[in-house]
């Protein structure tokens, strides 16, 4: 039987999760090891975000378990198919986040707080992909960033790095 833990979100929802899945989070792993996790583990993460985090963790867990169980026979083709499946899953996951940036940023903060390096990197890469190749005005619009420079200041900064602002 897999050991289960109960996670409590900041809005008091309980999530029952297998130990293996949740131990990807260094923060929670440490709480368990320190013995602080008797009963429910309280987390500063909303239920909506926590559900998303767990979705990611389960997918990752799934991936590593399957790789361990593989024998060599026909592995190549299987791996290729699996890679395709994971790619597809990740693409869907990314698309949802791109569409709802609030969830994206909640998730970024949660992955930081829970110490999930793989998820944090994945999300940072996702944001980087959204930013890459765009001019400042487009980036500001995409993330509602307020330009608090005076036109003179902006001109001066652009001049410093003129080369980077060539399309």
């Amino acid at each position: 039987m897999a050991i289960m833990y109960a996670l409590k979100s900041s809005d008091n929802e309980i999530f029952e999760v297998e130990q293996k899945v949740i131990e990807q989070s260094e923060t929670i792993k440490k709480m368990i090891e320190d013995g602080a996790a008797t009963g429910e583990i309280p987390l500063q993460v909303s239920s909506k975000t926590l559900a998303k985090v767990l979705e990611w963790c389960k997918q990752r867990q799934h991936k590593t378990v399957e790789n361990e169980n593989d024998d060599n026979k026909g592995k190549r083709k299987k791996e290729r198919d699996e890679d395709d499946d994971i790619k597809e899953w990740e693409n869907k996951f990314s698309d949802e986040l791109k569409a709802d940036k609030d969830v994206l940023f909640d998730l970024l903060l949660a992955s930081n707080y829970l110490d999930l390096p793989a998820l944090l990197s994945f999300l940072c890469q996702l944001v980087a992909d959204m930013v890459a190749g765009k001019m400042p005005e487009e980036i500001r619009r995409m993330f509602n960033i307020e330009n608090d420079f005076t036109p003179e200041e902006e001109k001066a900064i652009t001049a410093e790095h003129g080369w980077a602002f060539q399309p």
Partner: protein
Amino acid sequence: MDRFSDLPEHIIHHVMSFLPTKDAVRTSVLSKRFRSTWNSFPIIDFNQTCVSSFLRRRDGNVKERFLNFLSDSLRRRAPNTLLKKFRLHAFVPNTKSDNRIDEAINYALEHEVKELDLEIQARKINGKFTYKLPLILLPVKSVTLFKLKGFNLENLDLTKFSSIEEFRLEDCDGLKSLKISNPQLQNLKINSCSGLFQIDIEESNLKTFSFKGKNSNRNDQELKINMVGAKSVYNLELWRPSIGSKWFEDYASELLLLENLKLKGCNTLTNICIPSPSLKALEICECNVLEEIEILAPKLESFAYKGGSRRAAELLISDCKFLKNLELDYANVTDQWVGNNVPELEFLENLILSHCNMLERIIISHEQLKSFQLIRCLRLEEAVIDGRNLVLFRYNGRLIRSLLSIDSPGLEAELILQINQGTLTNADWYKGLRDFLGYFDHCKLLTINCTNMDVKYLIFPEYQRENLLPPLFDIKHLKVKVHKLPQDVLKLVKSLLWLSPLLEAISIISNSEEKTIKFEYAKAKTMLAMEDMAMNLSCCQGRIIKCWRHCLSKVSMAKFDNSENERLMEFFRREAVKLKTIVTAQTPSSISK
């Protein structure tokens, strides 16, 4: 504030680390928050190639402007921010030093940079790089990765770098000897540093050591590599080192953990004995004066020998019982060598013999062998191959007399045909080809690669077809690779259907485009003579197995162009008496007869 700007600074830095430098720089103009985040970004990447096309458009000297830009940028940075990576690739005027560069390097060191990557591009003076690495006075504890390219290294003192794990030198001058006494060092790469004649590895945790010498110069002084402090090495790669045979005696046997060894262009090495208890992969390339290689490595799994053209070495491998992959190119092996050694290698799975020009008649009988390639062994006249587990066979060369006896249902064979040199008549060629192809009748898939010759040599003329028996009755799938499609694809298809009269699929591949025809048959492929007469078929008289004309019921074609489709359809309709359906990639068309 917006959610992006609201993120902790280290997360924004993490995002920026995934951006190309140009995009990362652009974030500095988004807002004051991003401006300050940029100024504390722990990765600094100054690459003049990125910037120069822009700088060139303005007045003044590009090199000068870049160096000014470098100092200005560093001056603007937030104080007391530590650096993870510092990369500087600069073109410099022909000076031995430049304050702006030296200051930038010092800046990186003062800010405890972990990865330091410096590349100077300057014109050589008297064939040497002259830009001097600044003298580093204080110990450098932070640097773990250090890359240098294009420097004069007179001032280098590696012992100052007490935490270094990876050190790479490329195209550097001014270093006569290098002393390694860095207990953390795991990875050392030295590439084309002329004048370097002595490397003393006194203390290290070295796992990978790669040395590439300059293009060999005959009067090169012999290189001394002392590996006393490199006992933990498991990857060793030596390209063009002027080391002698004695070096091997002195050091190679001491490297008990060595797993991968590559020797390339060692032109001073005449004899080597490689006693190595852990060695798994060995590659010896273009070591022109090698006379004898003795490998005493019981765990060796892969051995590749690629001889230079000058001389070929004697190979003693009888100790390598567990060899799985053996590749010999321009090797001095004889028929007898193959006969003696290959059967002893019980675990051999992949064998490549290429340009082994002493081979004339080889017999290979091996239970485990999965893949065998026989490439351009010019004097080969006969090869008998018996391998029941063989799944891949590639042959490149002339037509030879006798080739295969394979009892392997899964075999895929590829034949790269070469036109015989000399005075070969057409009739001889076609007869020879017919006999040669006949050896491959029981393969799962046969690929005939004609990219080295005119495809007309695969198209059997009508009179040849009448006089010869088709060689490939058993083959189901035939692939033909051509350099250029013949003008008349139908001719090729006719010839292939003669070669192999009961095919299920033909693929014709040119320029990675694959045209296919698939065939389905009506019923048993034997027929009564009476039936033939009734259908006016004159072919296959007196034969038990009849050709496709008698029983083909459906043809599916893909990727042919319209005119090819029409010609092929017309041909099949005329010749195949029982044909009901032709499907082309676009539209299926039914035939009423």
